[in-house]
């Protein structure tokens, strides 16, 4: 299968994230890279722009901007050319999927392939059926590898309304976080830099309403933001990036955004009760430090 990887407005983060795949060479054995921005490939960007090269899978990284030129050619025009030929189109990362960070700069002229934020529109609407969105800022290498392997087996992944494969995005990032027990019993992280406590109440963790498998298929095979004590920034969602991401938006101390699908009344009843109990184990350090004594 022939792959062409093209870039819109991007930081190259998806390209570099993909390079972290643990079995990259083996994975790539199954495909022919007609063009890739960094990896060894058959053709230059100029050739992709000027010739009509084979393309079964078109991968787009970065947001689409009107009048963006690369190698002296209009990028969007060439994307449309290859989109018509390709059997599948993958939006690699949040920018290509929804516009992401780069859309903030000029929402009028910069956006995703078929989504502008969560609104369904965009320059590739005619090819919507072929599109698979793999948001994430950056994309997780294994998510991309997984979809490529499905396509190679002629399986088209089932997707959600935002065209994200369910096998990867049906989960919430919250699922599998090591701090889940603290979430259940409403034990907040006292501050950053702790192993203990949940980051939902004060540090702005977006994971309870962010779809993705960051805590199932770990990043770089070993960790995730929440495992490293960083709040999830919600980068797989069309709302990314929100503002003030290291603080929970609260209304009178109550988180303004409820965990996905949980009615506020239900959540507050359960959490109010859970918070009433003081559970010594959860309030103690996991590994005491001398300074804790």
């Amino acid at each position: 299968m022939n792959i062409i990887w093209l870039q819109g407005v991007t930081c190259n983060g998806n390209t570099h994230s993909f390079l972290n795949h643990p079995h990259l060479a083996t994975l790539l054995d199954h495909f022919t890279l007609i063009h890739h921005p960094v990896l060894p490939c058959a053709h230059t960007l100029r050739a992709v722009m000027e010739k009509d090269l084979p393309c079964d899978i078109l991968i787009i990284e970065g947001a689409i901007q009107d009048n963006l030129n690369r190698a002296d050619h209009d990028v969007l025009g060439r994307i449309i050319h290859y989109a018509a030929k390709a059997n599948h189109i993958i939006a690699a990362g949040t920018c290509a999927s929804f516009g992401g960070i780069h859309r903030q700069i000029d929402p009028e002229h910069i956006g995703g392939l078929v989504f502008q934020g969560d609104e369904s529109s965009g320059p590739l609407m005619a090819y919507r059926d072929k599109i698979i969105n793999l948001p994430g800022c950056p994309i997780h290498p294994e998510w991309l590898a997984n979809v490529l392997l499905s396509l190679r087996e002629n399986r088209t992944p089932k997707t959600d309304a935002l065209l994200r494969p369910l096998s990867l995005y049906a989960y919430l990032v919250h699922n599998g976080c090591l701090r889940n027990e603290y979430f259940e019993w409403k034990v907040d992280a006292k501050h950053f830099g702790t192993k203990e406590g949940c980051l939902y109440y004060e540090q702005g963790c977006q994971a309870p309403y962010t779809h993705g498998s960051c805590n199932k298929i770990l990043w770089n095979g070993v960790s995730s933001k929440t495992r490293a004590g960083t709040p999830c920034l919600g980068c797989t969602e069309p709302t990314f990036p929100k503002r003030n991401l290291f603080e929970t938006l609260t209304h009178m101390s109550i988180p303004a955004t409820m965990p996905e699908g949980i009615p506020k009344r239900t959540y507050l009843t359960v959490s109010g009760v859970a918070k009433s109990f003081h559970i010594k184990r959860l309030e103690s350090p996991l590994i005491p430090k001398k300074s804790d004594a």
Partner: protein
Amino acid sequence: MIRKEIVERIEGEARVDYEIEEDKIAFAQISFPHFRGMERILEGAPAHDALMITPRICGICGHAHLMAAVRAIESAYAAAGSPIFITPKAHALREITLYLELVQNHIKWFYLTVIPALQPLCTETLPKTSGAFAPVALSNRILALFAGQAPHSAYAIPGGVTCDPSELEQNQALGMLEELEKLLVSDLLGTNIAAYMEIQNLEALTALSGDFSYIINEMEKNGLQGIGQSHDRFLVLGEHTLVSPAKITHTTLRMVDNDKVSEDDTNTFAKGGFTYGKNALYKGMFFETGPMARAMARLDPLIKNIHRRHKDALITRIAARVHETVLLITEIRRLLRSLDLEQESFRAPMPISRLSAEGVGIVEAPRGPLIHRVKLKSGIIERYDIITPTQWNLAHGTRENPGPAQRALMGANPHHSDIIFRSFDVCSVCTTH
């Protein structure tokens, strides 16, 4: 004659118009055609958002941006009379992860940029580019043990770091580092680290059997060792465990004063010019930055030995980068071992909403000094200015006073233009953030 070229397979895209006279490059006009406007989206945002947004300026050196952003905000705290003292542990962790990003950058550059550009000029078949994959993934994996993920971590925050590693992560990191060393020893260096560290001159280096010496030997065999000399002026601005700020002209080391750094936008589209890249200058002069500059500032015996023979030529530039990779790994190990896990990861500073001040954060990124300047009002960003390393190296001057890369290209054989240009590890996405 003018030869117009679009350079791809760098971070982003650059355009070079070569003026060729009598089979030599007389001048090169370098421009960066893309612009994104990352500084603008920071204006009006809460300060901490810089930790999320600025790493996304660049997929390969985003971690350096994170470090510059956090240093900038912390320096604003100090300017406001409320200095932040992070623990030695938090400091060491930040250095470790920054160094790991440098390591993966250098390996990518060597295998994915330098080797393909050298191949057409060499008689022998050069090592495979896929040599980069395993060490790169491994470096980023160690980085993620502390920073949660790579690229685009946001684990450094004013007051420290968000992670609180235990012996588990410390040991995992040391174990993986050993693995990484093994890979580098068998492929890149061809000798063990201790033996490599003994090497002090070019002869001993070329006697090794790894990809590094293979490339150096090929360059010598094909007469490429002396090409690409530039101004022989170097600048280091970031303070780290491995290097301190210095200005080096030929071989004289001087202290630097950050106030002497300036930006020049006369060539930009905004001023009727031809590029989005702004020039970075020190005392109004162009300087080369990055691993070679750092080696000169560190008085590194091996690189100084090569420099003595070839000045700031291509060979020195390439050797300095690969050599730095090894030093970084040794330093990462030392820092990992030294971590005192009893120390706090984070100390809460004064609430940022009370902070109105200006700050500057300087970091030695893979390609040289990265500068973030921030102006905060009640914790909200009023102004954000970024100067990236490529703005130094790829600065655009005149024939009389060319930028470092221009100077390196001038007088060169046109066939050598590509490798000379790429030896500066051009990052267009950073330059035109």
